[in-house]
């Protein structure tokens, strides 16, 4: 069976959830369209089980609301078939002939809720929103697992790759350096060719360095540290690159020292990567703000929360790419300009510190990364 390549996992997060209502009663179908079709959801309808199956094959719906008794194929069979095709779809059953046995069977088959007719629209509305909320959480959880899996795979590979690739790289470099000495009397073009080879050796080596950094982020050396000092240092490290791109960096940090517990080098690297990423997003210049403050009233567990915002005036990230930016090897940069590991390293480092990072972006206006760290 053909499963969806583009499923609700890869859907544009701002797109309205799509709901398929399958009922042979026209009044019910119209009721759903009127009650929910305008605002929050895209409502599609099917007049029987076969139509529901056909439509569910054409589009990855978030939710199927379905009558159990319809002409042709019955609801339980539709439910089974639809779930096979799209395991992430949620199903709410509505029926005019409710029995406990039927309800149990439907729930066993994976239905989220079982509602008897006639129903109150508020009851349906509540069922839809809690069902979609559960789906959202599940998708988030599964995406996390996929990402952890990918990162672990990259980490394992990194050390092996480093050794195997760096040795031939070192040989190429030493060979070219020898040629450089032997051909020192040649024209400028030869020198240029040699420089190009050396530059590319360095480029390949940098990828290895990033891979190794990536794989080693799992070893934390935690210590109490002043986050403002750390941010100052990371800003200084990125300043050169910012100047080259004509990017102005502005800091708004608390005057008083704010202490958190973490791995100084790793956190500095994470913020440095973030700043460089932002600077790269502004090739024609722009502004980069780094703000930090305690978040009043907020707690992660028992700890107070320190919020750091990194905001640029770059080109922004399209919505369908926003969910992938922390994936290893995801990059929008030209070949040679980025490995696609920078932001996934950032993500991994914050995660190891039980901190969170999220991105908000508007195309053409810029991107803001919001990091929440545990303050001591």
């Amino acid at each position, binding site marked *: 069976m053909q499963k969806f390549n583009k499923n609700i996992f890869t859907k544009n997060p701002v797109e309205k959830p799509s709901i398929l209502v399958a009922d042979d009663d026209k009044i019910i179908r119209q009721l759903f369209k009127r009650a929910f079709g305008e605002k929050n959801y895209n409502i599609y309808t099917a007049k029987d089980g076969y139509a529901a199956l056909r439509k569910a094959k054409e589009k990855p719906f978030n939710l199927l609301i379905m009558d159990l008794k319809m002409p042709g194929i019955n609801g339980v069979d539709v439910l089974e078939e639809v779930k096979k095709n799209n395991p992430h779809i949620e199903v709410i059953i509505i029926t005019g002939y409710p029995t406990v046995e039927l309800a149990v069977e439907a729930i066993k088959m994976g239905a989220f809720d079982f509602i008897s007719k006639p129903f109150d629209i508020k009851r349906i509305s509540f069922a839809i929103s809690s069902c979609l909320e559960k789906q959202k959480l599940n998708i988030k959880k599964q995406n996390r697992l996929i990402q952890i899996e990918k990162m672990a795979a990259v980490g394992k590979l990194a050390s092996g790759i*480093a050794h195997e690739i760096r040795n031939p*790289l*070192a*040989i190429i470099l030493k060979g070219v*350096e020898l040629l450089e000495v032997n051909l020192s009397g040649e024209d400028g073009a030869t020198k240029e060719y040699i420089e190009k080879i050396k530059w590319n050796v360095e480029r390949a*080596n940098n990828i290895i*360095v990033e891979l*190794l950094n990536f794989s080693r982020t799992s070893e934390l050396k935690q210590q109490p540290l002043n986050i403002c000092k750390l941010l100052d240092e990371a800003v200084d490290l990125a300043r050169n690159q910012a100047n080259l791109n004509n990017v102005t960096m502005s800091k708004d940090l608390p005057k008083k020292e704010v202490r958190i517990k973490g791995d100084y080098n790793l956190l500095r*690297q994470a913020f440095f990567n973030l700043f460089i990423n932002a600077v790269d997003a502004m090739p024609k210049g722009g502004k980069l703000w780094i703000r930090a403050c305690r978040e009043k009233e907020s707690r992660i567990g028992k700890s107070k929360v320190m919020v750091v915002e990194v905001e640029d005036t770059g080109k922004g990230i399209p919505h369908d790419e926003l969910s992938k930016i922390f994936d290893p090897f995801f990059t929008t940069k030209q070949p040679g300009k980025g490995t696609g590991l920078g932001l996934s390293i950032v993500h991994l480092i914050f995660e190891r510190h039980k901190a969170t990072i999220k991105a908000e972006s508007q195309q053409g206006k810029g991107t803001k990364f919001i990091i929440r760290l545990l303050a001591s």
Partner: protein
Amino acid sequence: METGKTGKKKILLVDDEEDFCFFMKKNLEGTNEFQVITATEGREGIDLARKERPDLILLDIVMPGVSGVDMADALLNDPETKQIPIIFLTAVVAEGEMDGNPVTKIGGRNFIAKTVGIKKIIAFIKEVLEKQVL
């Protein structure tokens, strides 16, 4: 910093990558400051170190059989060779772990990333040799 009949410093390079040894030898000898002998196995490296008494050893870490670390331990436990300075060549350690430096000292040992340019390697060799004299 001169030594021996040739006035050149004698360097023993041990690396299982033959081509790396070939180019490194040519590069180092091209400066007219070094005489380079090479070995592609740890065992052979230990024998050469005892026989030739080099001024410095450039030593690959990951090698089949007797690794660079095993070889360094063997030389350190031998009163005849324990004073010979060693620089470990590494293809594994990331610059990030070497405090951002491709050449560095960690725990009293010298490390250099193999992909570092020859000029930096030579400068580091000289630095280590000079400290040895002091």
